[in-house]
């Protein structure tokens, strides 16, 4: 049995998305939440490159992926900065303990 490159890439996309979602579902640590989002975003990027390859517009896919890398970096930096502040102010990174938004 031989795997074609696109099929392999598609499997990787689904795998990354699945790992990311699973991480978000089970983790209570704010840093791990950021990591989970990162993993999901990587899956999304790979999906864009794959879509560009399949539709014959490789440049478009690559350009979109690059854009996402830029945006994604900013999101991560801000999120991690928040995490640092949260840790300093509340002394914990546990989401359950932090969810004071509830009444």
């Amino acid at each position, binding site marked *: 049995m031989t795997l074609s490159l696109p099929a392999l890439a598609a499997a990787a996309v689904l795998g990354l998305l699945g790992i990311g979602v699973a991480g978000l*579902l*089970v*983790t209570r640590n704010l840093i791990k939440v950021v990591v989970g989002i990162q993993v999901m975003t990587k899956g999304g990027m790979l999906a864009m490159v794959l879509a560009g390859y399949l539709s014959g517009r490789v440049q478009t896919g690559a350009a979109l992926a690059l854009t996402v890398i830029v945006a994604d970096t900013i999101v991560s930096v801000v999120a991690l900065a928040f995490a640092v502040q949260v840790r300093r102010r509340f002394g914990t990174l546990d989401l359950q303990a932090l*969810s004071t938004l509830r009444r």
Partner: protein
Amino acid sequence: MPSIETLAILSIAIPWLGALVVWLVRDHRPALQHGLSVAFALAGGVAAVAMIPQRTEANVLGVALGSAFGELTFLPDGLGVFLAVVATVVGSLAVIFSVDYMRGERQLGRYYALVLFFIGAMVGLVLSSNLLLVFVFWEITAFCSYALISFYNDDPKAVAAGIKALIMTQIGGVGLLGGALLLYVYQGTYDVPTFLAHANALPAGVLAVMAFGFLVAAAAKSAQFPFQTWLPDAMEAPTPISALIHAATMVNAGVYLLARFYPAFEGVPNWRLAVIVVGAVTALLAALMAIVSNDLKRVLAHSTVSQLGYMVYAVGSGGIFASQFHLLSHSVFKALLFLAAGAVIHAVGTRDMRQMGGLGKQMPFTRVVFIIGALALAGIPVLNGFWSKELVLEAGLMHAPIWSYVLMLIGAGLTAFYTYRMVTMVFYGEAHGHAHGDAGTAMKIALAPLALGALSTWLLAGPFAKLLSAETLPYHGIEAASTFHILEEVISLPTLIALAVVALGLLAWVFRSKLAGLGRALRGLGWAAENSFGFEAINRGIVRGVSGAAEGLRITQTGLLNWNVVGIVAGLLIVIAILALGA
């Protein structure tokens, strides 16, 4: 003379500009605020009156607003111009009255800005011929009424009343918006004249949904059954605002909507009957509630609801002319009654009629004008209320089920009864309170023309019929006739019956002590009327149900990321499933 186009814009723009200017003047110069408000209101009135000779059946102004919104067009035909005149002229008198009534109050800028904004929005509502814009203006008037009812925003009762008015009229707004969107879906336009011309091209079911949606909208706006409860609560507003809402703006909008679209909807099965039922039930229930109320403004509020019931009933009976003529009479005499009541309340310092009495000697001018208004309300010849109410009853007798006519007759008798009760309790009998002086000068300036109007607007029946005739309203089938001809038609046997009922109502109050037995027999009815026939209980139940449901749904808001991700994934799976099934 400016063109009709300019005048239509001016009659909206002048009050709105005035609202902005008065607000910008700031509250440390009250004299300037009073003066500017009166000037802008009167200028708006002049612009509206100047439209009368230039009325036209064609749309004016056509500013494209983009494909989804149609065009910004105005239709200054007889009906629209008439209501614009009522809004601006009666509105101006309320503003003049405010100069005395609101003297020394704080936050005049907010007060006058909202009043002028309200008047301009009402003009826009009745002149606009783009149904989506009608809805926009409709909602602006709803907002203004809410903000003005809650004007004393440190009084929890006033705030609650304002929110109640807003919520109830929003229910109606949904009906109007739904109708407008349906029209766009099926005819590709919001244009009202196009709709009236081609209403039958719509599928019957769609037309029926629109017709009943508009009925809900009108009922909510005009405080008709089953939405009648917001208007009496709106009495927490300053009295000139009550006059404005009851006579010049707001509640007229519902009757206007029904009258405007009557030609399109009259063929919808059971629609006319539904309108008749709404009008008749409202007229009767509100009259009963007016009898048991001891708050002067509440009595007047119930009487407004009841008289609006007459107008709605007239529309249902096909008597568009009668309904609009009664609207004219009502605007004049109800503005008069409210403003005169305002003078009384201002002088006595309470709204409770049990603490009044014997005020006639202390307030001779107010007594005279109030009684003129009261006689018009009761339908005593030859005041304007008599002629228009008889026209309504006649339309009902000819084109509505006979039982509804009987209900309306009973309502007329009750009207005479509670009007007489109100006048006696306030101005005659033993004095329970003290008034410091008669109405002020600005109050008198506002009251005098209204009193003259209540005595004389019925003489305008002929010109009024011409205003609403096929000349500019091709679909309503109103025939132009001379004043003499119209009044001659009123004088007939049914009129005598109606007059006899009115006289019975008056006599019932005179001999109320002898009727005490009857009163005891009807105690249950009186108790029901005092409790607004259970409608307040229904309202409270709905509020409890909604807040209970909200409390119950609170458990879905865990605030935990993991559960939110579960929700997102579940939503995604559902979307994918739908796509997979649909493909």
